[in-house]
């Protein structure tokens, strides 16, 4: 039941966001500052998800040390992404690094 509510709600807000401007067919547009603000949405949200996932892996305080395989793998992923600038390569190398560090530590 909660699942149905959750999925219906997610579907409704996602479609509403994608449809509202197309429905108005150009009669409504955003002021410049709002468009500029939207540019910041994806990196802000994604970063707010990544940091706790990597640095608080066990829900037990921040683990900023070399015994945290997620932190080490994240560093590898960042370097890979900066050098190769390719999403799929970043993901594959990052996952491989995580598996390796987890096995080593």
């Amino acid at each position: 039941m909660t699942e149905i509510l959750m999925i219906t709600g997610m579907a409704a807000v996602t479609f509403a966001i994608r449809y509202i401007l197309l429905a108005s067919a150009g009669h409504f547009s955003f002021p410049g500052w709002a468009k500029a603000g939207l540019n910041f949405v994806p990196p802000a949200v994604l970063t707010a998800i990544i940091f706790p996932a990597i640095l608080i892996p066990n829900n037990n305080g921040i683990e900023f040390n070399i015994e945290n395989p997620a932190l080490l793998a994240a560093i590898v992923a960042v370097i890979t992404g900066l050098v190769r600038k390719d999403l799929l390569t970043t993901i594959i190398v990052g996952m491989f690094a995580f598996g390796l560090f987890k096995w080593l530590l």
Partner: protein
Amino acid sequence: MTNLHDPGTCSSPEILANTGTSQSCPNRLKEVFAGSRATIPMIVGAIPFGIIFGTLAEQSGLSPLGAIAMSVFVFAGSSQFIALGLLSAGTGPLIIIATTFIVNLRHLLYSAAIVDDVKHLPGFWRALIAFGLTDESFAILADKIRKSDENWRLGSLQWFYLGSFLAMYCNWILCTVIGITLGELFPQMNSWGLDFAMSATFIGMVLPYLTTRPMLACVLVAGAMSLGTADLPHQLGLMVSAISAIAVGLSFHLACRRKEKTAVPEGMSTEDIKTNEENK
């Protein structure tokens, strides 16, 4: 963009036929295939995500049917991943819906970018285009619009998009099902580091944004705030951090722009200036 046509007179196929911009059936089919073909690179990229989503679903507390329903009705990869993360942390549906709203707000940018190119289409088509407006299909459509002429835009755009959308959509659902199956066959897949796949994916998605100082500030605030607010109830930390980071990034951005208007900016990178000009 100038409006070279009257949306009132060019919206129905019969009238388009009179003006000579209509498409015969084989041509429509050709456009549908062209749209699907143009989307192949994006599909290849989406395959691992769809499979990983399906694999992670059950252990996050989402039923197999729920996972398929999410891919069918929500059809928004990153917010589906985030929903899994929140579910496994025991978050309630209302917070998950609110977070989905924040995460998918970026799609407003996409619809704003294409609204002038699709406003001649009837309501059904605009609704379909909206439903399928993922990062991938938007990228393909925007690229094609840039390379095409007015005739194509008026007569073929929707068929091309249909092909692109159907290819992405069917692939996403299929990969979700494959992932669910794999997750059930190999429950120990969890320990293979698949849970890190989401972090790696998001890292790869954030990095290309880090070209301006306001963007860097935004990301640093988001990271610091998310660690500081991790103990807030109901996973509210994510929303609080994201909204603070957007506010800081936007304020910084607007301050840079104001400074640039009054004087030649000192120490600003060329990217800063370029982005500011693009946003004017």
